[in-house]
């Protein structure tokens, strides 16, 4: 029993030491989409400045913002990465916990692509067609029914007669959220039957507009996008949904489908012509600037042309930069720690 008591005492002692532990290393949390870019920046930052290399946790956008908003102090993160804009409700939650001044930095864009093996021809799709292929319920002859389409040809005669088989991320993924928002919800209201629901039954409308098929045509392939690429290579009939950087790295194996007449190229996403793209952000807790060393220097590193510029090292990793004019203003606002207003 003495041993038990001793061990407990030791644990308690460690706990008190922990509470008083100061931090000299920036702590970043958030989106797994921004993770590959932010890690590149911290690596460069650690090598070229006197500050320690920051720590980045891949928690997902929502989880990261929740941690970020949990309060002010060394035990809370300094920066949150997000693959979507912070929500007003999250800003309120932040303020409630004392995190009132937040600087928002928009860092660039990420395209979401529908790709298939190079052994098969490129698909040319509209968002409406994608909706018909992947929605759990679709309007047929004025009624909303369980998705009856088995082959792409049934949706549109111009499409090949192949079985609909799309590999995509699970609901926990930010890529999935963005895909549902930018493709499914966007095109749902083009069908009068679904639009009518908006007025009569809001919940039902949301469900019809955002639910993906569960009958085997849409396959949840896990969070690992490399795995999706491998599966596409093995199965030329299938399409896969993933972020642009994975297409960029695997151009010899897969090609991206044309959506609304636009190929998912670097330029088309940067110009905003490719429709399925989203903005990436990071958020800085202003109260920590000056307390945790190096936060201002980190913002400078991230917003420098050599990092997020057109030929910067982030572009090489697949980040699609902001337009040059927007970049200049954004860099200035970020370095000046202009607090976010919503």
């Amino acid at each position, binding site marked *: 029993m003495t041993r038990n008591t001793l061990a407990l005492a030791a644990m308690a002692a460690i706990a008190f030491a922990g509470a008083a532990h100061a931090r000299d290393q920036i702590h970043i949390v958030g989106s797994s989409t921004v993770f590959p870019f932010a890690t590149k920046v911290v690596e460069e930052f650690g090598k070229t400045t*006197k500050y320690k290399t920051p720590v980045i946790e891949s928690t997902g956008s929502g989880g990261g913002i929740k941690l970020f908003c949990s309060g002010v102090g060394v035990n809370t993160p300094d920066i949150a990465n997000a693959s979507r804009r912070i929500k007003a409700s999250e800003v309120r939650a932040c303020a409630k916990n004392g995190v009132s001044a937040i600087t928002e930095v928009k860092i660039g864009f990420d395209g979401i692509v529908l790709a298939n093996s*190079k052994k098969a021809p490129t698909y040319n799709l509209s968002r409406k067609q994608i909706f018909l292929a992947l929605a759990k319920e679709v309007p047929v002859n004025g009624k909303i029914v369980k998705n009856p389409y088995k082959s792409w040809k049934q949706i549109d005669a111009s499409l090949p007669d192949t079985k609909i088989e799309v590999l995509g991320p699970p609901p926990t993924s930010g890529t999935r959220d963005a895909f549902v928002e930018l493709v499914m919800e966007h095109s749902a209201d083009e069908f009068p039957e679904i639009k009518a629901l908006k007025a009569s039954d809001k919940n039902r409308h949301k469900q019809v507009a955002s639910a993906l098929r569960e009958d085997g045509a849409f396959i949840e392939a896990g969070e690992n996008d*490399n795995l999706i690429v491998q599966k596409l290579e093995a199965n030329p009939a299938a399409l896969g949904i993933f972020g642009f950087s994975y297409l960029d790295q695997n151009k010899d194996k897969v090609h991206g489908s044309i959506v609304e007449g636009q190929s998912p190229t670097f330029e088309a996403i940067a110009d905003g012509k490719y429709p399925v793209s989203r903005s990436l952000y990071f958020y800085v807790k202003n109260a920590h600037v000056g307390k945790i060393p190096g936060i201002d220097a980190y913002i400078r590193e991230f917003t420098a042309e050599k990092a997020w510029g057109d030929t910067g090292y982030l572009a090489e990793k697949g980040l699609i930069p902001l337009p040059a004019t927007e970049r200049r203003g954004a860099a200035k606002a970020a370095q000046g720690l202009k607090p976010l207003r919503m």
Partner: protein
Amino acid sequence: MTRAEDTARRLKRRHRAEKRFRLYGIGAVTSALVVLALLLGTIIVNGSSAFTTTEMRLTVFLDPAVIDPDAKKNRDDLLQADYGAIVLAALQKRFPEATGRSERLQLLKLASPGARDVLRDMVMADPAVIGKTVEVSVPASDNIDLLRKGKMTKAQAVSGGKMNERQFAWYDKLAADGLVRGTFNTRFFTAGASREPELAGIWSAVVGSFMTLAVTLVVAFPLGVAAAIYLQEFAPKNRWTDMIEVNINNLAAVPSIVFGLLGLAVFLNYMGLPRSAPLVGGLVLALMTLPTIIIAARSAMQAVPPSIRDAAVGLGASPLQVVAHHVLPLAMPGILTGSIIGMARALGETAPLLMIGMVAFIVDAPTSPMSPATVLPVQVYLWADSPERAFAEKTAAAVLVLLAFLIVMNGLAIYLRRKFERRW
């Protein structure tokens, strides 16, 4: 049919059944071995190439006009200097035909971004080298590394948009001059995480794993053994101890992520310990390993024959002396085996660590159990998810290292059992 015939027939049938049963057993073992060999085989084939890397020898002029234009040798300025320009100048000296902006960028891409780090480290270690011309080996880019190892063909490199004909020509020329060569990849064992596959290493994850396991051992072993001794030797048999026993057996089968949630609630939110720290990881894994150790320790003590206890009591030993002098030493091999197997399981865990922030990008190896760290399986997980092709071999190589640690630990458990086990 006579009785004798019937017996003979039935005997034959029984023998056949016996034979079939043996075949089933052999079949099961063989299929398990085939699957294991397949798994290990693919990992070794994929991973072994990560133990070598590609280097380029360059003659570099450490131009003071670029590194230290105002000749102040200010450390911050030296850190920030544009070492890429120096690498490019060295490459351009060999290939003066590359003049245009895009051509120069392509030329620079033959070398890894790590080439700049090599030069920067050299200057920071001894600023006196500024202004000198030196021969250095710098890491080549991941694409050249893959090309040299035959993991990517030229056709793939072109269709993937990774390299072009001009870059192949430069590479071939460097190779023909003997300036590009493969070496043992020490960086893989000494570096921390990196976004560049050719610079990434497992050192910070290995140190993190070691610290985490040390905390686990220090907490779980004494607590587990003490709990087992009490429950086995001293506790009265009643409803309470029965309930504790059922609960311990139950806990041993709880999914590990539950312990992560518990750790998040207790160690981070309630006790205020820092996130991503090996201390917290170790405590969480200790909670996870505790039931395994208790169960193993109890069954090891149960296996000590009662005659030994009776003899000790008969000679006047107190209950504590019986345990400390006789039961525990005799049960120790079994306890150690159980503990090592529990620790080996803890070494392979990622799920509970996700909750407490150890799924993180860590470049610098942790210096104390309070500094942020990650562990080997998490490193494997993060690399497997990286878009760059060259991370595939790193992933497999890190798995090999993890497997090596597991084999050593399990081997140690078997050795201890063989060496100290007593039979009665």
